[in-house]
């Protein structure tokens, strides 16, 4: 398909009818941006090592409106993450939020259709926060999500509310009968002194291709705390561009762990905007890639106000013909004195046919700051391997032990125990099976 023409046709058919939901002007503007920017090519510095043109050469079933439910509660039941019995579960199907499939356990958790929130009590919040990520990500794919924004969700954690149940977000794509393009959209507001654990995952049903182009925007207010976990373990016929944009508008604490174990092409944009004094942000990532999969983690930490602390550690295990990209931007604005910003990216390559492009990118405009960054790409610790073998441990077991040890300082930051043991098990099973 000629992507731009295809989406243009879709947009023009649909936009006039959908214009009433309050996002008409925003959509039009985004669509204009999409038309102008197009699909990013490798000439775009932000997409230099991640080629997405191939994703737009396929025919997808792309519907701007939700279709009659093809995914049943029984389907969802098979896909649930461990610990779901104690969790609020938010379910998207093909990019549209499904109230029918979602389970809200915390009685005072506000979950609304995005359009609903934009019309009622949360009108001002939505107007202010929706599209905040556009300031940081200026490419056609990002604009495409906004151009068709519809059927998204708005989640509000009330002031002083400490959510006892974590929130699980399932992005389900039903590709059982066709290739699917899905564009989930969510806006999350964590009010003053509130706390929440958010766990997000992606599942494709069926063997057809899926492409999920997701945008989540989060605001974290004063004295609030957000833990955000992204678990990516979808099939190799699935692709995604997944943007998580978090603005800390008061002294607050954000803790994120991104675990990417599988998928065809996965691009994560994670933005942390430290927009108040004394904000703290921790960004951890573990990617373990096999086959021909491609993982790209682009992170931004923007220090706008003074005295903020950020700590970033991403670790990769790459095997077979997989490819990886790490790009870590740290901005320190002129006002942001006394910034402490740390960044580290480490990669272990298990085969000669895998590669990683890693790029730390620090732009510092204040003079009284502490910023460090480091990046390594290397083989598995051969010394360590011999050490373990010399103690009687067979090579395969020794490799497994070393790689588990290597992953440990990321996995220990996954605080919900059922999720941590789930991820540990996935990694262990992979190490047991296909790492030679």
């Amino acid at each position, binding site marked *: 398909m000629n992507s731009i023409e295809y989406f243009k046709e879709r947009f023009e058919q649909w936009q006039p009818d959908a214009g009433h939901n309050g996002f008409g002007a925003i959509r039009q503007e985004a669509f204009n941006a999409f038309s102008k920017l197009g699909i990013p090519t490798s000439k775009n510095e932000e997409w230099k090592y991640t080629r997405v043109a191939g994703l737009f050469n396929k025919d997808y079933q792309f519907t701007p409106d939700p279709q009659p439910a093809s995914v049943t509660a029984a389907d969802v039941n098979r896909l649930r993450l461990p610990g779901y019995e104690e969790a609020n579960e938010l379910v998207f199907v093909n990019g549209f939020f499904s109230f029918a499939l979602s389970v809200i356990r915390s009685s005072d958790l506000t979950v609304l259709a995005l359009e609903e929130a934009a019309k009622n009590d949360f009108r001002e919040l939505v107007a202010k926060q929706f599209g905040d990520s556009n300031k940081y990500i200026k490419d056609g794919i990002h604009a495409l999500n906004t151009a068709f924004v519809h059927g998204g969700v708005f989640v509000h954690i009330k002031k002083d509310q400490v959510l006892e149940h974590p929130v699980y977000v399932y992005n389900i794509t039903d590709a059982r009968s066709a290739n699917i393009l899905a564009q989930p959209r969510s806006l999350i507001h964590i009010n003053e002194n509130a706390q929440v654990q958010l766990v997000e995952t992606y599942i494709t049903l069926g063997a057809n291709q899926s492409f999920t182009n997701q945008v989540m925007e989060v605001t974290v207010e004063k004295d609030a705390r957000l833990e955000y976990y992204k678990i990516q373990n979808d099939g190799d016929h699935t692709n995604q561009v997944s943007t998580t944009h978090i603005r800390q508008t008061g002294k607050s604490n954000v803790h994120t762990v991104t675990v990417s174990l599988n998928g065809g092409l996965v691009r994560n944009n994670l933005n942390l905007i430290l927009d108040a004094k004394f904000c703290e942000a921790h960004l951890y990532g573990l990617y373990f890639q096999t086959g021909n999969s491609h993982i790209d983690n682009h992170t931004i930490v923007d220090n706008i106000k003074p005295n903020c602390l950020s700590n970033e550690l991403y670790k990769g295990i790459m095997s077979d013909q997989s490819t990886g990209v790490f790009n870590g931007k740290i901005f320190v604005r002129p006002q942001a004195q006394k910034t402490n910003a740390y960044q580290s990216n480490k990669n272990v390559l298990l085969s000669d046919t895998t590669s990683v492009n890693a790029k730390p990118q620090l732009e510092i405009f204040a003079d009284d700051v502490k910023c460090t960054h480091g990046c390594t790409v290397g083989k598995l610790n051969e010394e360590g391997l011999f050490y373990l073998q010399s*103690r009687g441990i067979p090579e395969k077991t020794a490799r497994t032990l070393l790689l588990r040890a290597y992953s440990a300082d990321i996995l220990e930051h996954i605080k919900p125990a059922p999720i941590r043991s789930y991820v540990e098990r996935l990694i262990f099973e992979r190490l047991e099976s296909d790492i030679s």
Partner: protein
Amino acid sequence: MLSIQDLHAGIEGKKILNGINLDIKPGEVHAIMGPNGSGKSTLANVLAGRTDYEVSRGTVEFLGKDLLDLAPEKRAGEGLFLAFQYPVEIPGLNTINFIKTAVNEVRKYRGLEPLDAVSFLKLMKEKMALMNIEQSLLSRSLNEGFSGGEKKRNEVFQMAMLEPKLAILDETDSGLDIDAIRIVSNGVNKLRNKDNAVLVVTHYQRLLDYIVPDFVHVLYNGRIVKSGTKELALELEERGYDFIKNETSAVEAV
């Protein structure tokens, strides 16, 4: 127990060992001494099976088996143990879990059932007391942030847990003060019996005050150029390695 014949080995095309001959019998303690670069550590590592080294000639028989034919873990299974000169730090790998895996893999190799948690703990407590090592050290990641003395003590503790037939101590005294040497040596001595043997590789004589050898061999240019009893070590200490070098070049000049 161990019989090395005409062993030649090197690394990246560089020859380091040029025909080593050595026999070790159960119950014996042998010391290999020599100046820097003489090939001491190479010998220790070749015996343990480090793959960076290429053996170009010679044979090594260990308890009736062709040692050079075995992967490092199988050598350990057969009862060979190398205490590393530089024990490797592995963040994220719990020391106790590591030792438990090692003990049970070695047991498996020897056709024994794995130890259950209770039996393992009992064995560990026993050896901890013997080696004077604290639980707190073993609860940490393997060697991570350990002092030099702690690392070497951990090596000897692992040796105690694995109960090898032949223990090779590669420069176990390097970087240790005299108190640490005493502690580590006491540990080794407690493990000695008539059925096992120790090969001590060292640059200095001082370790041999504590682990007293039956035989001392001097390695120079990849060959054992002189063998004797513990008095030879004292002579080396007194006269330095130069007299060996002079003697050797005199012999070679003839």
